[in-house]
């Protein structure tokens, strides 16, 4: 399996996700500078977390116009799996690969903590390592993770079974109190129509190593390796 991690000015979780990918794949992913015109042939493209262009103007707004993004979008449309984590999720909504927007957290504060996520479906290359309905612990670290789309869009997304993960409590209950950022319908992660593009605010790469206090993120990388090798 070949994976490419796109590096933007201001990306800061590029190395972290590369470490998790290497642990699962047994080899290093390609680190691809945003100024390149093409992504090298890859089975997986990762848009990492961080503050591309300092989040100035709007999170992901400027990086969405980086030269590399034209090819990322084209490859995604042709079916290359794309994983956008945190700032990568912003890029996916900014480029229209995923609907909706990620607004400032309801608390107006940056939040860094472990949250519980409910795995909504496991029939994608990203999630086969989880059971449907499984509750996993993954950290969030963002200022702008408050997912918003209009009601019609949300209904359509639910109808198309495109919600990947929802914020929940330790028992899996989806109540408003545990929603860390105000996201509509507790949405933490979202797929495209074909389930090949995943945007998620939580950082699976941050709990994929027992030394860091948990491994609930690891099955995502293992699932990808199994599906794409």
């Amino acid at each position, binding site marked *: 399996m070949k994976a490419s991690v796109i590096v933007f000015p*201001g990306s*800061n979780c590029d190395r972290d996700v590369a*470490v998790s990918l290497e642990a699962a794949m047994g080899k290093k992913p390609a680190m691809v500078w945003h100024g390149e015109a093409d992504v090298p042939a890859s089975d997986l493209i990762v848009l990492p977390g961080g503050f591309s*262009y300092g989040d100035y103007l709007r999170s992901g707004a400027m990086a969405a116009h980086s030269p590399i993004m034209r090819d990322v979008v084209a490859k995604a449309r042709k079916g290359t799996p794309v994983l956008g984590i945190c700032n990568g999720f912003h890029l996916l909504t900014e480029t229209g690969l995923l609907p909706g927007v990620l607004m400032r957290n309801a608390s107006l504060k940056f939040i*860094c903590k472990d949250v519980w996520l409910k795995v909504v479906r496991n029939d994608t290359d990203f999630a086969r390592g989880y059971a449907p309905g499984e509750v996993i612990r993954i950290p969030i*670290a963002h200022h702008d993770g408050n997912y918003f789309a209009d009601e019609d869009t949300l209904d359509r997304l639910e109808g198309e079974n495109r919600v990947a993960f929802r914020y929940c409590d330790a028992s899996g209950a989806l109540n408003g109190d545990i929603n860390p950022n105000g996201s509509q319908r507790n949405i933490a992660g979202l797929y495209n129509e074909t389930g090949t593009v995943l945007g998620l605010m939580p950082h699976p790469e941050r709990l994929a190593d027992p030394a860091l206090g948990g491994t609930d993120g690891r099955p995502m990388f293992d699932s990808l390796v199994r599906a794409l090798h």
Partner: protein
Amino acid sequence: MTPELVSEHGLSAEEYEQVLSILGREPSITELGIFSVMWSEHCSYKSSKVWLKTLPTTGPQVICGPGENAGIVDIGDGQCAIFKMESHNHPSFIEPYQGAATGVGGIMRDVFTMGARPVANLNALRFGAPDHPKTRHLVSGVVAGIGGYGNCVGVPTVGGEVNFDPGYNGNILVNAMCVGLADTDRIFYSAARGVGLPVVYVGSKTGRDGIHGATMASAEFDDDSDEKRPTVQVGDPFTEKLLIEACLELMARDIIIAIQDMGAAGLTSSSVEMADKGGVGFDLDLNKVPCREEGMSAYEMMLSESQERMLIVLKPGSEDKARAIFQKWELDFAVVGVTTDTGRLIVTHNGHIEADMPVKALADSAPEYKRPWTLPEPPAVILPRDVAAPDSLTGTLETLMGSPHLCSRRWVWEQYDHMVMGDTLRRPGGDAAVVRVHGTTKGLAATCDVTPRYCAADPVEGGRQAVAEAWRNLTATGADPLAITDCMNFGNPERPEIMGQFVGCIEGMREAAEALQFPVVSGNVSLYNETKGAAIPPTPAIGGVGLIPDIAHMADISLKIEGETLLLLGAERGHLGQSLYMDVILEKREGAPPPVDLAAERKTGDLVRELIRDGSVSAVHDVSDGGLLVAVSEMALAGGVGAAMGEYDGPQPVHAMAFGEDQGRYIVASSRSGEIIARAKASGIPVRIIGETGGDTISVPGEEPVPLEKLRSLHEGWLPHYMTSR
């Protein structure tokens, strides 16, 4: 030059006489400005230098002590830790968000300037009383500023401390610490050795922000302090992130002679320091300096404290290679000067020489004062039996755990990205934070400590305690303490009683650093922390760094296993003078602070480290603010396992046992208590079984147990409630 102009530049009449004799003529306005910042307290350490020299700064682990941008210690395998702590107190009081943010940015530059990738940020924050009208606003702004900068750059903020005390009502403290990692064969220094070398400016453009920041940081506040807002710099963490990556990329090539960040006093201090250390002169052409604004004068350019800028002296002929790297990262790059053999700093602007001054005299002839000082009479020791007992131990525990002093700081650190870089092994909330040395099985532990109420009561004992507590907190994770950085925050040194606090704290720090072989490798002095004549409590913040040789053998504070024995290691005297019990419950601060026995400290800590490494203990916590019962409760809350305290039949009143703040003590949880007791006794270390783990309460004999959930809600509740109320 009028006397008014000289005095506005913070120079005394005597200092101005010295300027005249150095130059042999009247200075130009640009030269006056340069003298002013170079001789400011902030840049010259003129009141403190004579005392700082007394601190131990060497040891087999020390690669570079004070005097460079940051201190460096060896961590084996060809790697080193580079770290420093610095204050950004004055700007943060005036403009909390930007003041704190640029404090974080500045300290990271000090560390990556030397070739290190920053891997951990910490901060020591001291605010006024919770009921002071400005406190909420300052807490909110400072915390947001620290997070806003560090989160964006992508360096985890892993630890620190937050205090509230009316002594900081008019002058908060924001001390930022950064720890970086480098290879020992790729360390970069600031000495610009060699003549005819290109002097290169990289990073952000120069603007009019922060002019005279160093001078402001060397004066007291008054009613017009808000007018000083324009002297606060504005941070751009995105540029800092690019600057880190570009500098590290440049450093991987072999083309840098010297590098220095433009911190306080900007282009002035960086060029003077680089030229002085290299024994050369600098010719600077200000028309080459990238400017953000039009029409800036030489004076403004030399004194600007615009952030995210570096000065680099390159090997000749390597300009194009270097330029390509900075262009890739979309940063300004300009050759602004050349090193010379004149020994003079010659600044040209629009064809005019604006400054022509001898570098050595500027750097080395800064005045040095041995200011008069008086130490306060050490207060009398208050005996435990002379301190009133509470109605109930558990009720007192509840009050303490839910007080501003001891409540959880989660509201603060959840706003900091403390996990980015994927190596945070111990998150905030324990004794010391631990980050893994990337790609290895080693860990770096880091902590910030000082107890200002102890320092105020007895500066020598307080200085001793601050160093010992940092050493203890590192030890409690299983680390070998390596070295410290100090951030000395005090009032106006021209007052003998303030100077005495400084001298006393340094003396205590010296004793402890020597006894614990815990040398000072870097630091910063922040004086004139006063508003309208009211000085802050003496606050020598100590940042400690330690090495965990194998992360398979480290400890944390959380109780994990039911039915284990809780043991207390270290001597119990029931010392309640200057304790939080006295402060919070009895609402007074009296008596001597708890004494630190440095020999016992060392012996006890060494045993605790052994116990961690041979797997004898499942949890370790040092006993500090609040005493034994608070420490046990913190361990229980961290792990979600309760504790039952046993009967106390010692000589002290039971409340002194519960809330005394005797130093040099650790609580450990273990299933091998007999063995631990034997080992402690063999080493002459007092040891006692204090209770047992288990259940979901904290219980003390003869009182109703306190449910952990109740304690948790008190402990977690205060700060979020405070920040959202009103």
